[in-house]
């Protein structure tokens, strides 16, 4: 079954068409990668799916239900969680506090929320930082906090927007490992990433967009050798011979 299905999604910002008749779908339990040059419209597509922007056109289905005009918090309660490319921690609060905000989706009790949040932190090997002020974390830790908070909402589908940007190679490997673990727990993952090594290793399939339009789709190998993709990334003059 397709947990997420997008049909002809369009998003305009004034005169700018950031996402252009984009269609794609993700099967339950899979990892789908979304790549494209800077400004291609990847984050905008995520924001439409997560309910931040109402789409200008097209339809979005989550677990078979049309969610075009759903609010972000309702989508989250239904099992759709996301991280932000520009991390947004609750800076004055502890790591544990941050994660507990997510845990409260599935409980009203503070003690239960705390227990659930601690479990998530343990899973992400982040427990030692639980009392740290979120504002004092390093960039790698902030990315991890984004994931921890999203995970605490107990999602079925996770949207990761560049959770590896700014990480050192060793940290990237660790993050790849974490995402693979999440998939093995049955969570479907839709991931935007610029680090090719990571996205190639992770994705079952990859969708490539350029100026908001889909220009290629397929397995990592197919996409990597696609002529349109190479052109989009390197420019027209670098045509492969």
């Amino acid at each position, binding site marked *: 079954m397709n947990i997420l299905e997008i049909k002809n999604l369009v998003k305009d910002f004034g005169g700018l068409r950031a996402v252009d008749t984009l269609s794609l779908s993700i099967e339950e339990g899979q990892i789908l990668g979304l790549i494209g040059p800077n400004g291609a419209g990847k984050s905008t597509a995520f924001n439409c799916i*997560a309910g*931040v922007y109402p789409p200008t056109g097209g339809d979005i289905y989550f677990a078979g239900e049309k969610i075009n005009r759903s*609010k*972000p*918090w309702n989508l*989250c*309660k239904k099992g759709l*969680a*996301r991280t*932000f490319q520009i991390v*947004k*921690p*609750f*800076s*004055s*609060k*502890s790591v*544990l*506090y941050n994660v*507990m*905000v*997510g845990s*409260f*989706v599935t409980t*009203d*009790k*503070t003690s239960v*929320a705390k227990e659930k949040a601690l479990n998530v932190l343990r899973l992400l090997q982040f427990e030692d930082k639980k*009392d740290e*002020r979120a504002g004092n974390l390093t960039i790698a830790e902030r990315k991890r906090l984004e994931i921890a*908070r*999203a995970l*605490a*909402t107990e999602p079925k589908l996770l949207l990761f927007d560049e959770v590896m940007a700014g990480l050192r190679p060793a940290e990237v490997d660790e993050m790849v490992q974490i995402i693979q673990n999440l998939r093995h727990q049955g969570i479907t993952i839709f991931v935007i990433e610029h680090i090719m090594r990571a996205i190639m290793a992770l994705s079952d399939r990859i969708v490539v967009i350029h100026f908001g339009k889909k220009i290629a789709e397929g397995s990592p190998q197919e996409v990597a050798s696609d002529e349109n993709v190479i052109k989009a990334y390197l420019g027209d003059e670098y045509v492969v011979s």
Partner: protein
Amino acid sequence: MTRQNINRFALILVGVVAFGLPLVLRSPTYLHILILLYLYAYLTSSWNLVGGFAGVLPLGHSAFIGIGAYASTILSLQYGISPWIGMIVGGILAAIVGILIGFPTFKMRGAYFALATIAFGEGIRVMVENVDNLGPLKINGPRGLQIPPTNIGFGNYMFAGKEPYYYIILVMLLGILAITYFISRSKLGYYLNAGGEEPEAAMALGVNVARAKLIAMAMSSFFTALAGTFYAQFTLYIHPKSVISLDFSFEIAFIALIGGRGSIAGPVLGALLLRPVSDFSRIYFGSTLPGLHLIIFGTVLILVMIFQPRGLQEPLTRAYNRLLDKIFGGTEQKEITHEYS
């Protein structure tokens, strides 16, 4: 003795002193000053539910004081209803008005929200000043309403001495502090803090930020209005400039910002520090320099914002913890102050 016991002991000590003070302190002037101090600590704690936890800066809370004061006073003067019941009616009325004000304004950011709430507060004052009768209700415009001190007794919320008022406002203060404590540790508290700090992230984590803020606003308005009834019964004379004045709204915000908004102790600390300044500048310079306390507040606020942007509760909490560290040799785990405060 463990650390937790020390904290409990300190709290009990403060409570005993507060309840015992009127037995030692016989001067009505000092009791009056203390009553106002508690009143402001109570008002600021009520304000804190939305101004502290929800991260906005409401500057029109005097409107709710006015609603509480007028509701209970009109009901008791014209219909003979006990102010205790009128107090609840005023609270509910204020909660409804609070939601109506919050609905359009919570989408505004920063200064715009503050300005909009000032406008609402002032708008309500001007309206009351210009209305003598609202249907069957006698409001009496700028002249206000006088409560004749004829029916003294608990049921009528009216007493001859100051002591009963002292104990009523003290109990109210302890009540609001307990409520604040529980909210700050509840789901609502987490949601308010999250929504105030990073609304987009909060929404993505399942928080209906607008709804949480409206709930906080309704509670804040309700509790603020209860203080309006107290003020009316304490002074026995209300008029628009006394109960719906910007002075009230501003002094509450000053106390909160200087003491530390969003913390439980902040409003009490702020009131402890600022109320004496207010009172003494009014007593000694009231005729020569009537606005002196506001100038002092402004100066203190600037200094606090530069050196302790999270209010004076933060360094004081730290100093207190360090003191306990010294006593216990720092063996026990440090309390994480930023988790809740």
